[in-house]
C-alpha cells in the first residue's frame, strides 16, 4: 500500500496543499525538506490525524483551522479543515468544521450537531473510499479498514521521529523493546482472546455451573420409591380384587344354592318373600284395624238409625198429621188460650170496649171452651215438624249411606283378601324349603356382601392412592426431565469449560510462541539491518534480544558492547530495530520518518543513507528532513532511490497567521 496523493485544506499552516507521490516500485523514497518549524512534523501529524484522528506531539488545544482562514472568517461563517490521503487502492478523508461566533470566537462543530449535518447530511468527520475499476465506493466502517491497513497501535513503527529512536535503548529500553515486540506481534489480539475466554469462562460458564444442580439422582431415587410404592399398592389392589372376585364367586354360589332351594320361587329369594310377607301382614293388620273401625262405624250407624227406621212410618204419619193441622188452619193458632182468659177476666177488650155488652163475654167463653190444646203446643209442633222432615229424609238416605259404608268395607275386605292371598302364595312358596339352611345361606351371603363392600371401599382407597402416586411420579418425571436437561446443559457447560480452559491455555501458548517467534524474527532482522548499516562491520558480530527483551550487541570477541555504542551506532541500531519491527509486522504500509539523520555525524548519516534504500526496498518511504541533515552526500547516496523531492515553503503573516506550501524541488 502506498500513498498516491495527500491533499491538505486549511490544516494548520497548510491552506490548500496537494502532494503527489510515485509508486514505490521503482523509487521508493520521497523527500520533503523543510526548515525547523516549517511544518514537517505538522505534515506527519496531518497524516496521523487523517488516519486515526490523532496528532502526536502537538498541542491539541491549538485549533486545527488555519489561522489566516480563521481570521478571514466572518461571524456565522463556517470553514472546513480537510485532509485527504489517496492510497493506491484506498482514499481516506477526514474533515472538521468550524464556525465563527458573533463575538469572534471560532468553535469546532461536533459532527452530531445539526449545523454539521445540515451542510451535507453527514454526521461523521471520517470517510473512506475503496478504489475500484468502476470508481470510488464509500466504505461503511472507515475506522475498521484503516485499522486493517495501518493499525493505530503500530502506527508509531511506520510514522516516526528519527530523533526519538534512540530512546528504545536508553534506561527503560527493555520495557520499550518488549512493548514494541508485543505491539508488532499483535499480541494484544491474543490478550484480548485470553481476556475474553477467561471472562466468558468466569462470568458465564462458571456461574452457569453453579446454577445447575445435580439432584437428578435424588429425583430418580424418589421416582423409584414411588414406583415401588405404586407396585406394592397395585399388588395389594390385585389381592383385594381377587378377594372381591372370590367373594363375588361365593355370593354367586350361595345365590345358586338358594335358587336351587327355591327353584319354584319367583326371582328374588326367601328373604325378599319373607320381607314381603311381613309387610303384607303389617298392612293386613292395619287394614284389619281399619275394617274394624269401619264395622264399628257401620254398627254405630245401624244402632243410631235403627230407632228412627223402626219408627219411620210412624214419624211420617205424625208429620202428615201436623201438616193436616196446619192445612186446617189450626196451626199456628189465631190467638192463645191465655189471652182469651185474660180478656174474660178483665171484661174489657184491649181496644177499651166493654165486653159485658152484647154477649161479648159469653162469646169469648164459648171460644175458649172450643179452643183445644193445639194452640199451646203449636210452637212445639212447629219446631217438631222440620225435625221430623229431617228424620224422614235421613231415613230415606239410609240405604245409600249404608251402601257407602258397606262398599268401603267390601273394598277393604277385597283388598285384604288379595293380600291374604299373596301371603298364602308366599307361604306356599316358602313351604317345604329348608328355612334354616336358607337363613344360614342368606346370613352368609349378607356377611359376604358386607365383606365385599368393605373390600370395595379399600379398593377405592388403594386406587386413589395409586392415582396420587401416578400424579406424583408424573410430576417427578417432569422434574427429572428438567433436571436431565439441566444436567445435559451441565455437561455441555463442563465441555464449554474444558474447551474454554483449553482455548485459554492454547491462546497463552500461542501467544508465547508468537512472541518468541516475533522476538527471534525481530532479533534476526535487527541484526541483519544493523550489520548492513554499520560501517564497522567487523566490530560487531551479534545482536540479541533476550527472552526478557533486553537487547545486547556482541563485539567480535563476544563481549557485550551495547554500553559502548556511539550515539550514531545506537541510532543505527534503533533504525534497524524499527525496520525489523516494520518488516516483521507484515503490514505493507508506507514509512514516514521525520528527522532521521538529526544530530548524526556525517559518517553514520552517510552509511545509513547508503543502506537505507536497500533494507526498506519496495516500501514507500517519505522522509521529512531539514536542509542540514539532507546533505549533498546523503542526497547523492539516496539519489537512485528518491522519486520526488519537495520543499516546504513556509511564511508567517503578522497578525494573521502562517501559510505553508509544499513545492517540488
Amino acid at each position: 500500500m502506498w500513498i498516491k496523493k495527500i491533499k491538505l485544506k486549511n490544516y494548520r499552516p497548510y491552506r490548500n496543499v496537494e502532494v503527489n507521490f510515485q509508486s514505490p516500485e521503482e523509487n521508493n523514497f520521497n523527500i520533503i525538506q523543510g526548515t525547523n518549524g516549517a511544518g514537517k512534523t505538522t505534515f506527519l501529524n496531518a497524516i496521523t490525524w487523517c488516519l486515526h484522528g490523532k496528532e502526536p506531539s502537538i498541542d491539541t488545544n491549538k485549533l486545527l483551522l488555519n489561522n489566516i482562514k480563521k481570521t478571514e472568517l466572518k461571524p456565522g461563517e463556517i470553514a472546513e479543515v480537510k485532509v485527504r490521503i489517496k492510497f493506491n487502492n484506498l482514499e481516506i478523508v477526514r474533515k472538521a468544521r468550524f464556525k465563527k461566533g458573533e463575538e469572534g470566537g471560532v468553535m469546532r462543530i461536533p459532527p452530531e450537531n445539526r449545523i454539521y449535518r445540515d451542510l451535507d447530511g453527514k454526521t461523521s468527520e471520517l470517510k473512506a473510499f475503496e478504489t475500484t475499476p468502476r470508481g470510488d465506493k464509500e466504505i461503511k466502517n472507515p475506522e475498521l479498514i484503516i485499522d486493517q491497513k495501518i493499525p493505530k497501535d503500530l502506527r508509531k513503527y511506520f510514522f516516526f521521529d528519527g530523533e526519538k529512536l534512540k530512546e528504545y535503548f536508553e534506561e527503560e529500553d527493555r520495557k520499550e523493546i518488549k512493548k514494541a515486540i508485543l505491539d508488532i506481534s499483535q499480541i494484544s489480539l491474543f490478550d484480548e482472546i485470553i481476556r475474553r475466554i477467561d471472562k466468558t469462562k468466569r462470568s458465564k460458564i462458571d456461574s452457569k455451573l453453579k446454577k445447575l444442580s445435580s439432584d437428578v439422582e435424588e429425583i430418580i431415587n424418589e421416582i423409584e420409591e414411588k414406583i415401588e410404592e405404586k407396585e406394592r399398592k397395585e399388588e395389594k389392589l390385585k389381592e383385594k380384587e381377587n378377594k372381591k372376585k372370590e367373594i363375588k364367586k361365593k355370593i354367586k354360589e350361595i345365590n345358586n344354592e338358594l335358587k336351587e332351594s327355591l327353584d319354584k320361587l319367583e326371582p328374588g329369594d326367601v328373604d325378599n318373600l319373607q320381607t314381603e310377607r311381613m309387610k303384607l301382614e303389617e298392612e293386613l293388620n292395619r287394614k284389619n284395624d281399619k275394617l274394624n273401625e269401619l264395622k264399628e262405624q257401620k254398627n254405630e250407624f245401624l244402632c243410631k238409625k235403627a230407632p228412627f227406621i223402626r219408627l219411620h212410618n210412624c214419624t211420617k204419619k205424625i208429620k202428615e198429621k201436623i201438616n193436616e193441622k196446619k192445612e186446617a188452619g189450626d196451626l199456628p193458632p189465631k190467638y192463645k188460650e191465655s189471652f182469651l182468659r185474660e180478656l174474660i177476666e178483665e171484661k174489657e177488650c184491649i181496644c177499651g170496649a166493654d165486653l159485658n155488652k152484647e154477649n161479648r163475654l159469653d162469646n169469648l167463653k164459648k171460644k175458649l171452651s172450643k179452643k183445644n190444646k193445639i194452640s199451646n203446643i203449636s210452637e212445639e209442633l212447629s219446631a217438631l215438624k222440620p225435625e221430623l222432615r229431617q228424620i224422614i229424609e235421613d231415613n230415606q238416605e239410609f240405604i245409600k249411606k249404608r251402601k257407602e259404608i258397606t262398599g268401603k268395607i267390601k273394598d277393604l275386605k277385597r283388598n285384604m283378601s288379595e293380600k291374604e292371598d299373596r301371603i298364602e302364595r308366599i307361604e306356599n312358596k316358602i313351604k317345604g324349603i329348608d328355612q334354616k339352611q336358607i337363613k344360614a345361606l342368606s346370613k352368609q351371603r349378607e356377611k359376604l356382601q358386607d365383606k365385599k363392600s368393605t373390600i370395595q371401599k379399600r379398593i377405592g382407597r388403594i386406587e386413589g392412592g395409586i392415582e396420587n402416586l401416578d400424579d406424583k411420579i408424573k410430576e417427578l418425571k417432569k422434574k427429572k426431565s428438567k433436571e436431565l436437561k439441566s444436567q445435559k446443559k451441565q455437561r455441555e457447560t463442563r465441555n464449554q469449560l474444558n474447551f474454554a480452559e483449553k482455548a485459554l491455555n492454547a491462546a497463552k501458548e500461542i501467544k508465547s510462541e508468537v512472541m518468541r517467534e516475533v522476538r527471534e524474527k525481530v532479533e534476526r532482522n535487527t541484526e541483519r539491518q544493523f550489520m548492513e548499516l554499520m560501517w564497522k562491520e567487523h566490530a560487531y558480530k551479534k545482536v540479541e534480544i533476550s527472552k526478557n527483551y533486553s537487547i545486547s550487541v556482541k563485539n567480535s570477541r563476544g563481549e557485550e558492547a551495547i554500553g559502548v555504542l556511539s550515539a550514531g551506532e545506537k541510532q543505527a541500531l534503533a533504525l534497524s530495530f524499527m525496520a525489523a519491527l516494520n518488516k516483521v509486522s507484515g503490514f505493507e504500509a508506507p514509512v514516514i520518518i521525520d528527522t532521521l539523520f538529526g544530530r548524526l555525524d556525517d559518517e553514520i548519516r552517510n552509511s545509513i543513507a547508503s543502506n537505507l534504500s536497500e533494507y526498506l526496498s519496495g516500501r514507500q518511504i517519505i522522509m521529512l528532513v531539514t536542509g542540514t541533515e539532507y546533505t549533498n552526500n546523503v542526497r547523492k547516496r539516496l539519489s537512485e532511490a528518491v522519486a520526488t523531492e519537495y520543499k516546504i515553503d513556509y511564511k508567517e503573516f503578522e497578525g494573521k497567521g502562517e501559510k505553508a506550501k509544499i513545492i517540488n524541488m
Partner: protein
Amino acid sequence: MSKIDRISIQEEDWGKYEEIREREESPLKGSQNKILYLLALSLGFKYDMKSDELKNKKGFVRLDTLSEKDKALIKVLAIEESDTLEVLDDKAQVYEIADKYATGGVGLLYEGVFSNEPGEYFKKMEEELVGLAEDFSENN
C-alpha cells in the same frame, strides 16, 4: 209437677242394660245409654211390647244429652201411642209412654244381643233395617 230432666228405666232392667253395655261378648259393648234406651224403645214399639207403668223408676239418660232428633222420635212415639198431638203438651206423659216401650223392648234387646252368634246381631239388624228402609222407599 216436677220438671222432667231425664228419662227413666225400671230399676230391674238396669242389670240388663249394664250387661249389654259391659259384657265382653255384647255387640253393643261400650254403647251410650241413650243409644241402648232408644234401641229398646224402638224394639218395644216395633213388637208392641209396652210395659205397665214403671214401678221402680231409675233415671237413665239425662234429657240434655238427647239430640233434637232423639227428642222428636220420643214425641212421635207418644203422639202415635196417644193418637193425639196434644200429648206433647204433657211432657211427663210423653216420656212415660217412651219409658213403657223402652222397658218393654229391653228384654228383646237383651235377647237379641246375647242369643245370637257373634256378628249375627248386627247382621240381623242390618237385614231388618234394610228391609224396612226398602219398604218405605217403595211406598214413598
